[in-house]
């Protein structure tokens, strides 16, 4: 009994200290990220590996998610004779929820895990310690560009995902299911609002970008400097990012759309 209580206490303490370390770490990195203006090359390279290389999976899954939404939405709507509203259904689902959330989940798997593994290996091979020896702050040189790149890349990826999803649903709807293309777009334009739907989706994906980037770089920076530690940190990045994104999405949806 006493042992259990002690375990509970130790778990709580370690969770709290980890959270505290993560917050302090974020504050230090954010303070150091101002220097990136003078060194855009660093950011560019990270944007390439985090954004451009993630583009393929985003494009393919965006198209397929849109096409599946189009099919399933059609089968439901056609029972009510409302298949003209397919565009509204697809556009609202994608801009509000699926675009930001699925992009963030894919991002965690494709880019977040890579960030963690890279930084973790740098730590395990003592490259970070070496930088410190040369009076180079690894938080500014290594972590800050990666965090900022994640923050910038995720909203852009989410917009591309959303648009391609709508295009995918349009293709399936008009060519395969015989929905009128004009009604698809006009009903969508009448029902989807820029401020309420597109902008809120963009804000969501920005917050997911902060969360995904933060979790990835912190797990890499904080990992045990062993191969086992790096592997566990990578797994933890994907799991924690997915859970945080889903939880955050619920809270944001409750706040944004009434």
């Amino acid at each position, binding site marked *: 009994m006493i042992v259990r209580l002690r375990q509970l206490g130790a778990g709580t303490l370690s969770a709290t200290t980890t959270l505290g370390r993560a917050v302090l770490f974020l504050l230090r990195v954010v303070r150091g990220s101002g220097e990136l203006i003078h060194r855009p090359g660093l950011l560019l390279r990270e*944007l390439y590996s985090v954004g*451009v290389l993630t*583009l393929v999976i985003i494009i393919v899954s965006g198209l397929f998610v849109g096409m599946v939404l189009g099919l399933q939405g059609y089968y439901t709507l056609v029972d009510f004779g409302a298949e003209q509203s397919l565009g509204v259904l697809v*556009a609202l689902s994608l801009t509000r929820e699926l675009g930001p959330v699925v992009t963030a989940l894919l991002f965690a798997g494709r880019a977040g895990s890579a960030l963690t593994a890279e930084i973790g290996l740098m730590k395990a091979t003592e490259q970070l310690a070496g930088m410190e020896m040369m009076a180079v702050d690894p938080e500014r040189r290594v972590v800050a560009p990666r965090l900022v790149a994640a923050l910038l890349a995720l909203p*852009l990826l989410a*917009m*591309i995902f959303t648009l391609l999803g709508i295009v995918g649903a349009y293709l399936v709807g008009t060519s395969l299911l015989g929905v009128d293309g004009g009604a698809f777009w006009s009903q969508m334009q009448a029902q989807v*609002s*820029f401020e309420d739907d*597109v902008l809120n989706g963009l804000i969501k994906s920005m917050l997911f970008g902060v969360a995904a980037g933060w979790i990835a770089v912190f797990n890499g920076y904080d990992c045990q400097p062993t191969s086992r530690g790096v592997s566990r940190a990578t797994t933890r990045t994907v799991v924690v990012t997915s859970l945080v994104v889903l939880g955050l999405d619920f809270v944001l949806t409750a706040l944004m759309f009434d």
Partner: protein
Amino acid sequence: MDNARSMELAVGAFVAAGLAALFVLAMQVSNITAFQQSEGYTVEAYFQNVGGLRERAPVRMGGVQIGRVSAITLDAQRFEARVALTIDQRYDDLPSDTAASIRTSGLLGEQYVSLEPGGMPDALAEGDEITLTRSALVLEDIVGQFLYNQSGEGE
């Protein structure tokens, strides 16, 4: 060096594609053009019952959209719904005795405000009230009335 240039090119293309996607979402998917035409004038209409009318619903005359519903509130004195209609500046010559009614497009479609022109020579202006209004049809009332009539005939 060539490697760095192609990387810059790829990142540039990525950022441009993302911004272009946002632009298309704003212009093609959502109705950003509709709320930009905010230069218009607002008139008020009181309805006993607005049914399922929502803000941003279209205002139509002769089937053509000429504005949007900008606000729906309850008037605390009259206990009627006050509906503010923002009408495009192009249509600034509507007769002052124009009538407003709430209609439904199709059987299951959304509700909109339909305006019927009157015959007065003077025009509606900012802040005017449309006095001739007809409320939304509430299906329960109609069904109730129908059943009442049916039972009356049966006797």
